[in-house]
């Protein structure tokens, strides 16, 4: 798909490339250049491509987005950041404004010497070599033009490295804010998380921005979890109502590693989350939980891929959607079990609740199994609130709106309850309940 958007991204690249070359290593420069070439070749996807059949990115391709090179707070101060934080989570907080690290708004804690929790720009400037084996090694630019675009424009984001055997108890919070700039802004946050052997950590990514104006977040997270390491990863997408949010989480897991992933998608006008997990070690395990709640004309798409490449690996996936008004949801969950991956255990479910007649959801589970001794199960449901349950609640004095809220909240809690970090779970449940109550009032008002 050729468009003004593509031309802008391409024409601006040489200047960007020259500018950032001063900070980073030469090897990164060639990665960027290969990526922009790949982006040029791919262009933006269109609906004729199977992976993009239900998600139309033309509005992104049509918009001329502005790349911010100088950080400006545009009124986002500490108080605004506090509102987006999780009371009770006292660990590292790294804040990014329009894609660039903000030392003023960030909050650092003392951590063991070898632990790295810093901005990607700083890591690339000061000591890039340790990143080289990992950065842009897992998130592939070949097929996904947005990953290619992010890689080409990679500049800042977060670098987290937990050395062997180290445990970071407090959650590390990465907060990506698009500020209320006058122009439609694009950011390309890049996150690299390396959990070395036997280490443990919790990372939370939050995305937020201004109310109604268009902007574009194009994020890529690469996660490497080595033998016996454990990572809790929680992504909370609360972008503004005019936002486009495209993100890939690419995880690579080694022997006996464990990842617990949550993807919570509440905001944006159009959101697409790709989560690709490669279980490339015996006994590795990933749990993917997800929740999307949409309203108005929001569109939220989750594409997940779990690749069982070694024996005895386990994946448990549960995604739930609540779709209201004219909104649309897409869930595509693919599980691949390779020939060597005997004794794979994979379970996937996607459950959707439609709250209005105008809401739609496309759900598509897909299994590709090349091994013979495996246990795989998947299921998808699309339903409405249960009339008998609504009646039951009303016989207990709850009005129709409150009864609907409560039942929907109950449906959602199945996912939020699985978040292990109490303050995050509590905040999320408060957010969800407030939103459902708001929707209830709106419904009663019409």
């Amino acid at each position: 798909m050729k468009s003004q958007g593509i031309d802008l991204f391409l024409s601006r690249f040489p200047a960007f490339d020259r500018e950032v070359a001063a900070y980073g290593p030469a090897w990164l420069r060639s990665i960027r250049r290969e990526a922009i070439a790949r982006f040029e070749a791919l262009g933006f996807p269109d609906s004729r491509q199977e992976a993009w059949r239900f998600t139309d990115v033309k509005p992104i391709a049509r918009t001329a987005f502005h790349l911010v090179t100088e950080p400006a707070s545009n009124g986002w101060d500490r108080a605004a950041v506090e509102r987006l934080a999780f009371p009770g989570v006292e660990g590292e907080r790294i804040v990014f404004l329009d894609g660039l690290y903000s030392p003023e708004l960030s909050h650092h804690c003392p951590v063991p010497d070898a632990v790295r929790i810093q901005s990607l720009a700083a890591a690339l400037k000061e000591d890039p070599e340790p990143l080289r084996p990992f950065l842009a090694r897992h998130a592939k630019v070949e097929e996904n033009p947005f990953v290619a675009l992010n890689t080409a424009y990679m500049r800042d984001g977060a670098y987290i490295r937990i050395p062997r055997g180290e445990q970071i108890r407090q959650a590390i919070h990465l907060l990506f804010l698009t500020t209320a700039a006058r122009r439609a802004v694009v950011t390309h946050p890049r996150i690299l998380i390396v959990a070395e052997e036997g280490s443990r950590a919790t990372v939370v990514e939050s995305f937020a921005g201004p109310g109604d104006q268009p902007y574009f977040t194009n994020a890529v997270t690469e996660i490497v979890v080595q033998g016996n390491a454990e990572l809790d990863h929680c992504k909370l997408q609360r972008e503004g109502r005019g936002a486009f949010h495209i993100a890939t989480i690419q995880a690579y897991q080694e022997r006996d590693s464990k990842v617990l992933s949550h993807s919570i998608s509440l905001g944006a006008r159009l959101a697409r989350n790709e989560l690709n997990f490669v279980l490339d070690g015996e006994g590795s395990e990933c749990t993917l939980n997800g929740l999307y709640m949409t309203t108005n004309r929001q569109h939220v798409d989750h594409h997940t891929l779990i690749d069982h490449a070694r024996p005895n690996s386990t994946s448990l996936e549960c995604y739930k959607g609540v779709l209201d008004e004219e909104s649309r949801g897409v869930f595509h969950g693919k599980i691949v079990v390779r020939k060597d991956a005997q004794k794979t255990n994979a379970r996937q479910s996607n459950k959707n609740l439609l709250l209005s007649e105008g809401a739609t959801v496309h759900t598509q589970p897909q299994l590709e199994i090349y091994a013979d001794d495996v246990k795989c199960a998947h299921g998808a449901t699309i339903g409405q609130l249960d009339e008998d349950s609504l009646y039951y609640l009303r016989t207990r004095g709850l009005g129709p709106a409150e009864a609907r809220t409560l039942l929907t909240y109950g449906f959602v809690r199945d996912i939020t309850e699985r978040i292990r970090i109490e303050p995050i779970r509590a905040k999320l449940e408060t957010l969800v309940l407030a939103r459902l109550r708001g929707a209830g009032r709106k419904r009663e008002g019409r």
Partner: protein
Amino acid sequence: MTGSKKKPILEVRGLRARVGGKEILRGLDLTIQAGEVHAIMGPNGSGKSTLANVLAGHEGYEVTGGQVMYRGKDLLSVSTEERAREGIFLAFQYPVEIPGISTAYFLRASLNSILKHRGEEEIDPIDFLTLVKKKAKLVQMDQSLLNRPVNEGFSGGEKKRNEILQMMVLEPRLAILDETDSGLDIDALKIVASGVNAMRDPERAMIVVTHYQRLLTYIVPDRVHVLSHGRIVKSGGKELALELEEKGYAWTEIDSPAPAAPTSPDVPAS
């Protein structure tokens, strides 16, 4: 019947209702005074559950005729939740499960909606917990169940006890127990019955809907009515239940007045 000058809690006259196009209630009359416990008995399909649900306000039942007065006011024009807030409580034959919402949370929301309706302040969460734990003890319900999602994974007996617990917390004016005895073993039945008996009050009326006499050994009713083909065909004191047990429902079929008969013996002809 005593106290005929008192205003009844419930007056049902000539009630007709259908579900899915099929007429289930066909001219039902029933009057209940405060302080009374009435048993409604009848074979399967006689309309017992329909009556319970029509009184509670189930929108799936279409009322096609008759009148229901609750504490002197027309009940049928009132929404389900308003009825509950005005003091009507239905203990379900098959209580639903509500994933993700604990009994404690749900019941507090419920109590608060009733208190709010009365213009009273919401209950303090700590006070509520004290109250609900006390009531749970009375129905021998394990306190851990209060924090579990409503009825999810509960045994049949636990579900029924949860219904009685809710009744005790919400303190209705008119409680309707729809086959609360079904699926209960004798021990659970005794617990449920003692919970119900503890709720007997001069200001409160109860309708106990049951297929079997068994429950009425433990909850002794003031009046017993036999429902057949959507109408009350026989009314009497508690001894009627025993007579039914002995003779079977076929006896009331033979003994029942012709379908055209205007009223049950319980209600004076208007």
